[in-house]
């Protein structure tokens, strides 16, 4: 069984994002970038399925700028077998929209014929939470989103999903799109021997045009703003005063 893991190169989760002065988006020039954390969880789950003998090959796919090959090397160092980079932008500020990403992934799935696409539930840069669902629709495959546990039994995947108010366990028919939630696993550190080996693994490069996908944006960003700064607090003299103030503010 082959597993495809789509991964996105995003602003590192430790970096304090700054909005560009023209409000067109987050400034990514010379900012540390790394693998989207949910995608890291997806890579880990795919590797575990391979180690458990369920999967035979893990292929990492990234779509974006050329530098995303560094992110793919990280996936290879963690244990993915090979990687495909689809170059679809020259500028790191160009965000490829979920529908375009889903179409590109569909084209890759048509070629690769995986049984599972193990994706992150969303990317931490724009929090769209849409690619997995769109890909399932385009392929006409089943989907199991927000996974916190994945088991493969015969032709089905038994997936526990994190839903509002609890956990839901569903059985989906393979091939399927599974999207990873935070508690699915704790990703491993890449070991030094695996980092060295990753350099020698295959990394194929294609373009969106090769796959016949038009990545022209359909959405337009109206404005981007940083969250308002927190206002100074106030020390109240008594509980009564606190309650009064909360009532006044309409908070209770």
């Amino acid at each position, binding site marked *: 069984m082959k597993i495809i893991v789509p991964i996105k190169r995003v602003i590192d989760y430790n970096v304090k994002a700054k909005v560009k002065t023209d409000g067109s988006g987050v400034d990514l020039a010379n900012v540390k970038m790394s693998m989207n954390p949910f995608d890291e969880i997806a890579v880990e789950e795919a590797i575990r399925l391979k180690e458990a003998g369920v999967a035979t090959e893990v292929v990492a796919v990234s779509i974006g700028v050329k530098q995303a090959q560094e992110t793919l090397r990280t996936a290879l160092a963690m244990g993915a077998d090979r990687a495909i980079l689809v170059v679809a932008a020259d500028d790191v500020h160009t965000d490829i929209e979920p529908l375009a990403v889903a179409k590109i992934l569909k084209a890759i799935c048509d070629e690769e014929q995986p049984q599972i696409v193990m994706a992150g539930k969303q990317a931490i840069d724009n929090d769209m939470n849409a690619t997995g669902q769109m890909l399932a629709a385009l392929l006409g495959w089943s989907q199991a989103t927000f996974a916190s546990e994945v088991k493969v039994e015969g032709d089905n995947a038994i997936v526990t999903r994190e839903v509002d108010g609890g956990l839901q366990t569903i059985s989906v028919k393979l091939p399927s799109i599974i999207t990873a939630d935070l508690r699915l696993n704790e990703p491993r550190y890449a070991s030094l021997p695996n980092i060295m080996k990753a*350099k020698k693994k295959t990394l194929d490069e294609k373009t969106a045009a090769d796959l016949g996908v038009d990545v022209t944006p359909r959405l337009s960003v109206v404005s981007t703003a940083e969250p308002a700064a927190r206002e100074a607090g106030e020390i109240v003299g008594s509980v009564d005063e606190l309650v009064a103030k909360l009532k006044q503010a309409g908070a209770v």
Partner: protein
Amino acid sequence: MTYTAPIDDMMFVIEDLCGLNSVSKLRGLEDATPDLVSAVLEESGKFAGQVLAPLNVVGDRVGLTFEDGKVHTPDGWAAAYHQLVEMGWNSPTSDPERGGMGLPTVVNACIQEMFNGANTAFQLCSVLTQGAIEAIEGYADEALKTVYLPKLVTGEWTGTMNLTEPQAGSDLAAIRSKAEPTGDHYLVSGQKIFITYGEHEMAENIIHLVLARLPDAPAGVKGISLFVVPKYLVNADGSLGQRNDVRCISIEHKLGIHASPTCALAFGDNGGATGYLVGEPNKGLQYMFAMMNNARLGVGLQAVGISELATQHAIKYAMERTQGRTTAGSEETIIGHPDIRRMLGLMKARTEAARVIAYRAATSLDFAQRSSNSEERARHQRRVDLLIPITKGWSTELGIENASLGVQIHGGMGYIEETGAAQHLRDVRITTIYEGTTGIQAIDLVGRKIQRDGGVAAMELVADMRTTARALSELSTNYADWVAICGAVMDAADKVEELTNWILAQRGSEPLAAAVTVLECFGICLGAWVMGDAAISASERIERGRCPMHAKTKLKTVQFYMNNVFPKAEALSSTVKKGAKSILDLSAADFCVDA
């Protein structure tokens, strides 16, 4: 306690100032291209920050327990060690044929700085194992290599270095431990002290490298041999056999590095510990000296790592702590006060300068071992020999000053253990002592490294410093005050030349009396040189739009160094020339209070 590996600065130094591209053209280092090295540093940085750093405080507070001859490391220590072994971080430079990764020494320098910065007490275990590997790899016969190297390289077994005895510290000629030949091996007996990680339960076996005397050995330094003495004997099939006749009799209570066991070991209480001779008889000290460069570089890197850690903590505190008000009347964080920025600037600028000197020494080690050109190998060996006492002596003394400034920035809170600032000062304090005190480094510099070769290596360095000054004099961008930077580097080259000539001209004990001051002056002057090179590279990076934030800060840091650190060289150079005689004039009797 948080630690963030300074990967941007490390990559800047190894790519632009150490020429990683040329290093990766050396025989056997072809894999070490910048993209691979960057991936390696990212992952080792994660390991340092996420696994090792959180254990640093625990190690300091909880420390070690010793009962029934066993040393117990703090909770989490053994698990982290097993993870380090599993991840392949134990011995990154070892020969791939023995299971190592074959990375360049200069890349390992970054990894060692990170791991030591994150948790010195922990990393010492691998530091000592790397030393044992080097000794066996370099001098033992094939049979010993086959038995001991593979598991030392992975870290499944750990290594120790047994030199010191109660009466033999800096002077190893006084060693008394004995080795009696019997059959195919030796029976080793004697007592060794200050043995780092001499006993612990994290690994299944410990391989002691022990200096001892054969029965017919000549007296003094020419009669010392080197032996491998395993904690558990190794059977012919590689499995572990019976416990050898070596035991830990106590562990020391120390100022710092609380979780690193410093053991007193008794060899041969029950007839003699089984040992195997490494290399030829009576050459033990010679082998030890050949390994000294790496060991001393390692301690220099330790100090750079702790300096970096202390600086990061001080910056964080200075940005959060409010005291006083700004002129506009709002609450001010203490980083707003010029004197705090002075102290942070000193910490940052000196740490970065010391980093470059250490990494350049590591780069020269790579060239000295692997260059295909014999002239180039010899030149780099001369450079290594000259830089090692400077990087060891200067980085460690600076480490103490930096960690002390870190405490100062924390104010009263810094004197209280909870902030963690004091731990860095206590931990770094050992680095000027072990692997040769600063005094020993300084004597090595003026005696073996300058007087013995008639100043050849030092003058080659002066020539390189002047090359940097010339390149600086040709820069005309408005990014920095090039005249001032160039002037400082020229002045630094003149001072190194002048002091070298002064040392060569002395006929008495003056160079010994002035040695530590010479070493500090050399350190500061070499700092100016490497910061000059850093300014050139930073300016190029700004031109090309590559990491402009780091490059712009680097230029300001270079200017800070030239104007706030380098001027001290003037006072030091004057102290060398004036001070030596008055040191010698003081006799022991002058210190006698009762007289």
